[in-house]
């Protein structure tokens, strides 16, 4: 029994049970807790994976009895995209924030190698966002809009034979990250006997390939029996339809064919009611808890270990996350500083070089100037000398001119014969 288990566990912590002699009143605790949650509202996120046209949107519409987005996708998507939409539903006093993530273009490409990668990336991104919020210094977890995927409905094509390779591959990559519930879509194309065989084949394939699908919990006695029987009916063969037909005197959701009418909520026709029961009425809270306690913790552990954090240091002494974080942070800052220094050195270097070049140029220019100046100076001096010579010449010439004129004048005044000799003498004397 669950209650004695709790008592035993609590007793292990050295606590004594005590008996009350009257009504204290803390039996209202679960109600207090539930009221708080009702005030805050619930979040539930469903991921639907399946080929285009397999009936994902119709099934979700039928499950929640409302009509969500109507957009029909084409088959010509170049790669798989995920489209998330959030809706707020309210039933009596419960507010549910439902997010439906659809895979658009899954299974449509010719080369399907990368089909599952965008899905895995999306799921990891939601975990990462939550982890970031949790690791912040100033955080507000209690009003954080939780976008982690709580359940993945995997739609299997009703071929009647076995799982496709793409299905196996995708599920194998997702089973440790999200709760997978496989469903057989468009189950009205398979007959009852074929369906039995198909289900057995599918489950055995999943088991033999080690794919861990979500098992409905059987540890709580109130729901263990029903969960156990439901576990035996997996995968659920579902039919979805929002069209209503009159059967007997009631309006029921059904699909009409010339050979008969398939009623969605008739348990003989398909497992839709079981799916709704299991998904929403019985196990929604467990799905949310598994996502948080198992898948998210696994992601967190892997991510932190990847970043180099450990719980025990090199000498096997417990090292706190904080210390490792600080060490890493310091390392990072050291790195940053080193890079800065490097860049600064380089900058200084460049500046020096440029300066050297400029100085060089300046010096050259100066030298040239000096040279030119000198040349100019020399030229000038030469010219000066020449001028001086010229002037001297001029003076000499003028003197001689004056002297000869004087002589000529004297010669005219005295005798010509004597003068000739004297002229000559005088000339020689001059």
């Amino acid at each position, binding site marked *: 029994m669950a209650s004695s288990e709790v008592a035993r566990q609590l007793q292990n912590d050295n606590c004594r049970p*005590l008996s009350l002699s009257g009504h204290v*009143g803390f039996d209202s605790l*679960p109600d207090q*807790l539930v009221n708080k*949650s009702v005030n805050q509202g619930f979040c539930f996120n469903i991921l639907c994976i399946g080929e285009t046209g397999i009936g994902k949107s119709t099934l979700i519409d039928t499950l929640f009895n*409302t009509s969500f987005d109507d957009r029909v996708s084409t088959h010509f998507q170049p790669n798989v995209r995920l489209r998330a939409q959030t809706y707020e539903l309210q039933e*009596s006093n419960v507010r549910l924030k439902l997010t439906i993530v659809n895979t658009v273009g899954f299974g449509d490409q010719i080369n399907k190698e990368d089909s599952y990668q965008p899905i895995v990336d999306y799921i990891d*991104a939601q975990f990462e966002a939550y982890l970031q919020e949790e690791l912040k210094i100033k955080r507000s977890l209690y009003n954080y809009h939780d976008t982690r995927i709580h359940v993945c409905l995997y739609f299997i094509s009703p071929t009647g034979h076995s799982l496709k390779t793409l299905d196996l591959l995708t599920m194998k990559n997702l089973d440790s990250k999200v709760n997978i519930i496989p469903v057989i879509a468009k189950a009205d194309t398979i007959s009852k006997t074929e369906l039995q065989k198909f289900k057995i084949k599918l489950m055995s394939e999943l088991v033999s390939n080690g794919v861990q699908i979500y098992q409905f919990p059987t540890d709580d006695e109130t729901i263990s029996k029903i969960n156990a029987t439901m576990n035996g009916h997996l995968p659920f063969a579902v039919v979805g339809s929002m069209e209503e037909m009159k059967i007997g005197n009631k309006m029921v959701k059904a699909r009409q064919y010339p050979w008969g009418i398939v009623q969605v909520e008739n348990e003989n026709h398909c497992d839709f009611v079981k799916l709704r029961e299991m998904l929403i009425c019985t196990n929604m809270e467990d799905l949310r808890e598994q996502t948080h306690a198992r898948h998210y913790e696994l992601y967190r552990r892997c991510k932190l270990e990847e970043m180099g954090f450990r*719980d025990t240091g090199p000498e096997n002494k417990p090292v706190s996350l904080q210390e490792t974080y600080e060490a890493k*942070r310091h390392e990072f800052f050291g790195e940053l500083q080193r890079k800065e220094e490097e860049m600064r050195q380089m900058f200084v270097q460049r500046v020096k070089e440029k300066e050297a070049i400029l100085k060089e140029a300046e010096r050259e220019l100066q030298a040239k100037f000096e040279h030119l100046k000198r040349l100019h100076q020399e030229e000038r001096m030469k010219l000066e000398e020449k001028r001086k010579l010229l002037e001297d010449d001029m003076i000499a010439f003028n003197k001689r001119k004056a002297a000869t004129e004087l002589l000529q004048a004297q010669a005219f005044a005295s005798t010509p014969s004597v003068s000739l000799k004297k002229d000559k003498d005088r000339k020689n004397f001059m």
Partner: protein
Amino acid sequence: MEGQPVQPAPEETPRNTNPANVGLELFGYVGIEAVLDQMRIKTMKTGFEFNLMVVGQSGLGKSTMVNTLFKSKVSRKPTGPGYEEHIPKTVQLQSVTHIIEEKGVKMKLTVTDTPGFGDQINNENCWDPIIKYINEQYEKYLREEILISRKRKIPDTRVHSCVYFVPPTGHWLRPLDLEFMRRLSKIVNVVPVIAKADTLTLEERAEFKQRIQKDLKAHGISVYPQEDFDDNPDDRILNDKIRDKIPFAVVGADKEHQVNGKRVLGRKTKWGIIEVENPAHCEFPLLRDLLIRSHLQDLKDITHNVHYESYRVQRLNESNRLALSPVNGLLGKDEVESDL
């Protein structure tokens, strides 16, 4: 986290394509409200934890009050004659843990008593051991929370509520009371009560309460329920009514007496029997309702979302500065900055 930029999912996968969440009508019954029952079953399976601390001078009736609250011998204080209460030289903290069950709901109750508080001649810093204890519990929880592989359910030893016993002087709050409540209301939910209220008449009680409320307001002390944490108008109306009556005037009793043919818990005196659970006599029912029947989950939530978070912020910021200090042999922050 620095150095680890989160790669956002490729542009085609936005987290929320609808800018405004669409509210939709359900055409019929879906079964969403069954999640409430699921939650109820789950919480009953895991059980609850509640940690209460009682603070006050010796002889004010703390142990009796706890026993009356939980209708059992939570604190075993021998009361026979010839027993001398040993008053410790410094404030000590003693915790007792019990498991109590009512109608399938299991609760692990821890009551921390503080003998020696306010009993010495020089009571300076007598609140320090208490503050240290409360912070130690936060530290324990923080360490568990930041482990890589952490437990599914982290054991919660944080003090959810601290009941402070004010002696029934009838005048004002004493400096010790003010100092204590001022410091502790910042880190834990403090619920002040007037102890041994059977020494005050109804008029004296009302006046005393008024003065205490004025005192608390004048010194900026916010006791539980704090005004800042009222979520919605309904809560505010409810809590305003409670705030009018704080501090509750209580009387504790663990003996039963016969009154009008019924057995009631009360104190028998020569001039009458004070019925503990009679709202006309004392306000014990209000205290019990506040602590247990209506606001227990709220006390735990405020401890977790407000007090624990502010401790965490302070602690993480502190260790940031510590890691870069010269004491550790690493580059001091100032040295680093001067290089720039």
